[in-house]
């Protein structure tokens, strides 16, 4: 693997770290999977379905999300929304995220 390829392969790992917080932050209002995918994409975070749907299920099993099936238009959709535990998690993760951004800014500016 060339150095360029190694950097390329490291980038998804860098993005993966923010996906949970990004997903939780966008589910403070109820959304179904595909609408969430579009929302995230519009805001610059591209995730494929193979990553998003299993992640939604995992977050639900951890109690951070709640879901319910509803028939919209012509087919059923599963809607997700953050739970009370999910809201607390967002606050904690936001604070951690700000700390990381501050720390990395200091490091990258050579302080």
């Amino acid at each position, binding site marked *: 693997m060339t150095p360029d390829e190694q950097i390329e392969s490291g980038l998804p790992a860098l993005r993966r770290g923010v996906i949970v917080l990004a997903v939780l932050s966008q589910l403070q209002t109820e959304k*179904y*999977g*595909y*609408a969430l995918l*579009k929302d995230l994409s519009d805001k610059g975070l591209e995730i494929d*379905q*193979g*990553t998003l*749907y*299993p992640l939604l*299920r995992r977050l639900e099993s951890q109690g951070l999300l709640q879901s319910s*099936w509803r028939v919209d*238009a*012509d*087919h*059923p*959709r*599963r809607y997700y929304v953050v739970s009370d535990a999910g809201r607390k998690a967002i606050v904690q993760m936001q604070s951690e995220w700000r700390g990381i951004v501050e720390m990395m800014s200091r490091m990258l500016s050579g302080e």
Partner: protein
Amino acid sequence: MSLLDRYVKEVGSHLPPKQRTDIEAEIKSSLQDILQEKSARTGVTVDETLMLAVLKEYGKPEKVAASYLPPRYLIGPELFPIFWLVLKIGLGIVAAIAVLVFAARTAVGDIQSWAEVGANISGLFNGAIATLGWVVVTFIILERFLPLQKLKGKERDWDPAELLKKPDTELIPLSTPIVAILFTLAALILFNIFPDFVAIKAVKTLTDNEWVTLITLTDAFYAQIPWLNVLWLLSLGFHGATIWQRRWQPWTRAAQIGLHVFSIVILIRLITGADIIYFDPAALEYLNAGGAPLDNIGAISNIGLRAALGIAVVVSLFEIGKNGYKMVNQQ
């Protein structure tokens, strides 16, 4: 059944039954959303061509199903270090047994062609594959049924201060080579300069202090003395080197393995050759005056001695395995 349903069922077939229905419904719903969105954006009605394009983009059913499942291992990261250790020990034992069998067959002249050498190597290869298979199967079973959370709990209890209590296994205590050199020198002097001293004698009459020899070593034993001398001289060099080094090195371990293999060859020659101790019947008769006949005592003693030499072979074999394992680990 539509193409969409076929795809969803195909994904479901790779999922555990408990989650299947729910995940199938979610994937179907997601695909319907994508189809609707694409149709609305391009103005194309939802037909088989559009479905094929969407499914192609969504991914291979096995891959989609795998994304819903936790990582699956035959042997996971918690058990892998123990698995690796057990495998190395197992393969070491197989290799040691193969060396013993080869040495034994060579010593008794049973290996007479390259085809027989090849058959021994093939036996070693088959043994190694079988060992690998058994160890892997055992650990796959452990991976499935062992409560691995308990192992993780033990990791948390780990105290780095324990490292200070651990003995340095690579250090060679000075007493070991010094004692070995003294015994080796004693053997060299005894068997080469004073061979007559190697006997069991008894006093025949107390008045004139006459001695009778009960047991002596036979010519079959003394025929091996040149080889034993080579072994003892090499051992002296080896123990001298360990005093100089003070720590085990891969080459010192390799040298010790070589010495053990050499000693096994000599031991097997002694075990499989003629009797190596001799009982004088006249002396026995004298000592046993009036007692039960002692006709078989010589044969029984030689069998016992052969058994003792056999134990020495097993010990050497164990040492070969131990040094081989440590040598591989050190590298």
